């Protein structure tokens, strides 16, 4: 009998939020948030039913469209655990996995090995976005006996590289069809997913223009919200409609003069990840600090800062196959887990276009790909844009209130300094 307790709790929580919005609508927050939660509930209910029916799940990081086109269900990560200490205890003390590593990967692993997330039938891994992610997938695979298919993303990004990756995806398809009963690749479905996601991405790119406005009309919470990829959703039509309505609402609020934070005094970019919880966002709002840009692996591609446009024949000198398009939009678009230039160049570009005053470089334990780039990031931001960077050490899941208090204290001092210097 599948353990669906984690998802049942999530569904109950989301339903409570939806009820809260219906009973006490707050004009400060976006109306489409309710629709977003409804979509998440639908997705989770579908997952619970799939688990109960023993349908096959998979974890294909950054190539999720192919996962859906093969007929796998997709599990969710460890973003919303309420008792991180419990899961960390499982992973570190019970099973012996590393303590000083990325929270997100640790929580996801703990959820899987404790049986609270569905165990995938197949996992894929490659070298983006980072080692903790790849290693946690290796760990889950080796510990649980899950089939693992290693993909190699070449270091270069030219035509030969994307062809190589596309061919590997072909091998992955054969592997899955042979290894998991009932799995069959549907290319028409893949194309439909890619085209749906392409439309959604168009909406996102339009909202990037709003971020250029001063004051920024989008709140930090909404900047942090990861954009939905509707193609793989259980209800793709409704999910795509949400993406359109979300775009419309952002423009509507901007036209009405609703700002992201009251009395904007400073504009910051934030990198990598953030603490889960309200305190930091409340601090930003209180200080009048807007955050037009959240910089992580695929955000430059999502918002058009770097080109990764589906169907663009000019990028590689030819039309890409559907599998190559999967690579183009995900793995090849990720600016993490590669050399410094894609990460820093795209950050600088976004900061320039969005008139950013300062950058918060969020450095989590185990996040070598960001932490060991901090000096280069800060130096180049100062040299090329004249803006300061705060190296802010923190976690996604803080174990004590004191830790997050201290972190926010450092953040506040930096923000105050930047605001004072700006005047």
């Amino acid at each position, binding site marked *: 009998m599948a353990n669906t307790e984690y998802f049942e709790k999530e569904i109950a929580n989301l339903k409570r939020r939806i009820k809260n919005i219906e009973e006490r609508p707050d004009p400060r927050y976006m109306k489409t948030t309710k629709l977003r939660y409804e979509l998440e509930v639908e997705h989770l209910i579908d997952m619970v039913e799939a688990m109960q029916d023993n349908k096959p799940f998979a974890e294909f990081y950054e190539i999720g469209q192919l996962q859906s086109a093969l007929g796998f269900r997709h599990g969710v990560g460890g973003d919303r655990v309420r008792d991180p200490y419990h899961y960390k205890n499982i992973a570190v003390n019970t*099973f*012996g*996995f*590393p303590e*000083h*590593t990325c929270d997100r990967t640790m929580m996801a692993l703990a959820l899987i090995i404790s049986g609270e997330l569905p165990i995938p039938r197949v996992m894929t*891994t490659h*070298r983006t976005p*980072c*080692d*903790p992610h790849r*290693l*946690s997938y*290796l*760990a889950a695979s*080796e*510990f649980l006996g899950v089939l*693992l298919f*290693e993909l*190699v993303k*070449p*270091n*270069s990004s030219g035509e*030969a*590289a994307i062809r*190589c990756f596309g*061919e*590997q995806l072909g*091998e992955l398809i054969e592997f899955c069809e042979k290894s998991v009963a009932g799995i069959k690749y549907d290319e028409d479905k893949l194309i439909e997913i890619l085209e749906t996601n392409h439309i959604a991405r168009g909406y996102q790119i339009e909202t990037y223009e709003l971020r250029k406005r001063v004051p920024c009309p989008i709140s930090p919470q909404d900047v942090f919200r990861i954009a939905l990829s509707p193609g793989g959703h259980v209800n793709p039509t409704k999910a795509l409609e949400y993406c359109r309505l979300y775009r419309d609402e952002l423009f509507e609020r901007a036209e009405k003069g609703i700002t992201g934070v009251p009395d904007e005094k400073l504009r910051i970019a934030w990198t990598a990840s953030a603490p889960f919880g309200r305190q930091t966002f409340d601090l930003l709002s209180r200080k009048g600090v807007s955050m037009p840009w959240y910089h992580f692996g695929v955000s430059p591609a999502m918002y058009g800062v770097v080109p990764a446009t589906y169907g663009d024949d000019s990028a590689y000198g030819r039309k890409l196959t559907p599998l190559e398009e999967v690579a183009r939009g995900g793995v090849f678009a990720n600016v993490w*887990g*590669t*050399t*410094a230039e894609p990460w820093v160049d795209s950050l600088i570009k976004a900061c320039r276009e969005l008139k950013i005053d300062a950058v918060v470089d969020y*450095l989590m*334990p*185990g996040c*070598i*790909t960001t*932490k*060991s*780039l*901090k*000096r*280069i990031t800060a*130096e180049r931001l100062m040299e090329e844009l004249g803006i300061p960077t705060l190296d802010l050490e923190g976690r996604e899941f803080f174990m004590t209130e004191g830790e997050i208090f201290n972190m926010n204290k450092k953040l506040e001092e930096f923000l105050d300094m930047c605001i004072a210097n700006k005047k």
Partner: protein
Amino acid sequence: MDARALEMRLSSLVKGNSPERRKEHVLKAKSQGKKIIGSICPCMPEEVIYAAGMLPWRITGTWDSDVSRAAAYLDLDSCQYCLHSLEALLRGDLDFIDGMVGSDWDDDQRRLYDTWKRVSKPAFYETYSASLNKSSIVVRYRAHELAELASALERFSGHKITDDGLRQAIKVYNQTRRLLQQFYELRKRPVPLISGPEVLGITTASRVMDKAEFNAELQDLLPYLEGRQVAPRSGQPRILVSSDHLDNPRFLEIIEGEGCQVVMDDLDTGSRYFSKLVDEYADDLYLALAWRSADRPGDAAMFGWKEQARQTIQWAKDFRADGVIELFDEFSAARQWRSPIVTREMARENMPFIRISRGYEVTNIEQLRTRVGAFLEMLLEAKSVPGKSIS
């Protein structure tokens, strides 16, 4: 040549990568007009660099504890080898390096190369893929990458890489591998004819020397070593040491000093370096190099942890090791993530196993001694009580 003279030659070779000696070969290569290509990646495609008329040189980091310069760039809680290598660069210890060849081995190495490029602005810098993936698609692509790397190396060195030149380079490197394999066989004997620190000294020396010169030296020494007179160390446990980026023989001196014999290793600076030959008769030499690269024994940063653990266990059995000591860098993400799987495999095979964290520099010596000593005591006790297991 008499035994004393050969013993001195052996001692000289063992010290080839010591701080005092490791640049000797650099100076010699430079005097011959050769450029030096540095790397920290365990799978640096040395043959291609060699065929381009340059000296491939494995970087050793600083062996003291001061990493204050490097800590301004890289996270202190990250790969200590990378940290100490960057420190060496920033101190000016590596100013003789003309170019770098790097890989996507792991996040730590990628960031080291990023910093290196920014700080040093090397005249030459290229990368390649370090995966062990044996898909023919990937291996063919890697061959394509190697060919492109070769073109870049040619332009930098001004020396054309011909097929014959590359084949000759592969032959030289295969000879190194064969000689080291032969050399390692000496460790299987009931009384190993060469100590753990001596072996590590020699394997790391091979990474900073001209290979033809190294081959000639080891070839001359092997007959002497076959009949070398060593003091018997009866009753001492036989140990396999597993680690990454271990290049300071002092660690193994400390371990052997507690009363054991390090008879085998699972090191990128040791056995993993010379396992597997390249097909030197292949029509497509870049493809042959790519296959060898894919087929080599795995490291923790690579896919296949169970196989890696089983390989270590098999080596321990082949060399009749009584136990395995893993000296891991506390901040090596790959080793940390892999550890529950390795521990489980060791227990399954009843192989006595202990994990001891270490820095890149030799430090916390008494802690290391205490833990090694305790492990050896348990091994001796287990040996004295038939059927007793300590795993």
